């Protein structure tokens, strides 16, 4: 199957732009409904001349569990590239349990995987649940999910409806992103219509707004699109799903917290204006750790080994809000700037760590 179309799209943070797209896709279904494999690629070219390439593939295997219960194991991978600037990839495995009746059902799923921007993989975890209902030529569904990608977390509440009559297919979705940390908030929705032109061809018109997808790296935007579908007809919203990956949403679990032998890492805990600030230095294999900074008048202060944290050394200090300079010395060695600070050249031929205290 091949989708070809034009779009007018406005990604958040970008000016509106026209775009043309080509999107081949293929799908294989097991003859007895035990599973499927599908793949889709998209070439998108913007007015500016920039282009976006996107590829994704997914497979699922279904198995009976009990009388009305069905299990599903699936996996999906994807990669994209925008203007040779931003690259994104992800791999997800998921397990889903379906409770099915003739015209209604529900499901619960969990997914885990990795999502990468550049060289940095971030863990992905998603829990979701949903219900669906069939009524003559119409179907409606609703779902709720909670996604964690690095330290970005968000929930989507979605509903969708489909009406099919005389070969014409109408689809609509309405959703809201809530309880979001780093993935945006707000209401979104899309609508589309597919009109068959004859055997193996159709026109699709769609419009709407969709949210940032942190897992695949697409940024939120709104669009209007029109295009042709050639091949076996089935519906798929024709929004420019291959939006530019430049705005890859972000992530961040940060470093995994490990500290290489010989290195140190600073953690600052500020419990409030009246409380001393706790500095924790992680220094694997160290026998003694000292710090010195503008909050000690640059007098070396020996830290105490933590009773609860492995490889950690701690101290409490009165530190005013603002920007501060610090150095660390382990086992009487040279003064260094610990990880967890911004390392800068000092005025004395060495380096100093700078940290912010809100």
């Amino acid at each position, binding site marked *: 199957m091949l989708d070809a179309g034009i779009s007018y799209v406005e990604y958040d943070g*970008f000016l509106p732009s026209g775009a043309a797209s080509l999107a081949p896709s293929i799908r294989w279904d097991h003859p007895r409904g035990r599973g499927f494999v599908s793949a889709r690629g998209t070439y998108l070219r*913007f007015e500016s001349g920039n282009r976006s390439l996107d590829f994704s593939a997914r497979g699922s295997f279904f198995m009976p569990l009990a009388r009305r219960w069905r299990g599903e194991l699936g996996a999906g991978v994807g990669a994209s590239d925008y203007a040779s600037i931003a690259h994104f990839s992800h791999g997800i495995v998921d397990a889903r349990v379906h409770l099915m009746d003739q015209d209604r059902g529900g499901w619960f799923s969990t997914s885990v995987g990795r999502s990468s*921007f550049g060289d940095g993989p971030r863990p992905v975890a998603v829990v979701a649940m949903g219900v669906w209902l069939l009524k003559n030529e119409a179907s409606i569904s609703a779902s709720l999910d909670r996604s964690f990608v690095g330290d970005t977390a968000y929930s989507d509440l979605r509903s969708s409806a489909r009406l099919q009559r005389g070969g014409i297919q109408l689809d609509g979705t309405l959703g809201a992103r809530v309880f979001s940390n780093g993935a945006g908030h707000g209401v979104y929705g899309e609508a589309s219509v597919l009109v068959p032109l004859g055997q193996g061809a159709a026109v699709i018109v769609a419009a709407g707004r969709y949210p940032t997808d942190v897992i695949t790296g697409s940024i939120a935007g709104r669009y209007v699109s029109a295009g042709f579908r050639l091949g076996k007809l089935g519906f798929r919203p024709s929004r420019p799903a291959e939006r530019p990956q430049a705005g890859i949403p972000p*992530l*961040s679990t940060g470093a995994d917290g490990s500290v290489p032998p010989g290195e140190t890492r600073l953690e600052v805990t500020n419990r409030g204006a009246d409380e001393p600030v706790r500095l924790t230095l992680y220094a694997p294999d160290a026998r003694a750790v000292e710090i010195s900074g503008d909050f000690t008048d640059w007098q070396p202060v020996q830290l105490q080994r933590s009773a609860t944290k492995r490889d950690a050394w701690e101290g409490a200090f009165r530190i005013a809000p603002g920007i501060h300079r610090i150095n660390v010395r382990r086992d009487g060695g040279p003064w260094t700037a610990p990880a967890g600070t911004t*390392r800068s050249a000092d*005025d004395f031929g060495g380096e100093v760590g700078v940290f*912010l205290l809100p």
Partner: protein
Amino acid sequence: MMLTVLLLVTQVAVQDPRLERLDPETRSLVVSVVDSARAVGLPGEPLIQRALEGVTKGAQGPRIVAAVRRLATDLGTARSALGTRATTPELEAGVAALRAGAGPQVLTQLRDARRPPLTMALAVLADLVTSGVPVDSASAIVLAFAPTARDADLVEFRRAVERDISLGAPPGAAASVRALNTGIRGANDAAVPPGQPPRPPSRP
């Protein structure tokens, strides 16, 4: 009267026991710089701290004096850009931003765009640039944030960018992406001349 004030100020500096860690010659020169700075309304504490840092790091006297003088000059530049009402933390953060590569006009724009205190905004600007974010992009982003963002938002933004960088994202892209995600328009444009307002958003 002026002479009396100057003498009092000098005496305070001389009597600061922390400076006893300096050798007599270096101490004398450092005290002179500190006194001169205070005489024109600049804070002396950051200068004393810089001298103490040098002592702790075993620097030679001339190097300590040079560092203190350089800092005094930078504090003066920061105050010119931020105004005479700038606090000591603001001036210190301003110096960090200047040394990172931000122009004085960016500091002035920030002062005009944001209600004080500016410490966190300046520190975040310095931090972004030190982390590798191009100074033009960092300036555009912080200026775009300035009118409405809370200090906590700036800190969170900085933290997020830092983590993205630690995960392998190019610093400029990490900052732009985070800014876009926060709704800062124009942050995707990395070629804003220093001191100029952020450019409008570009086409994809």
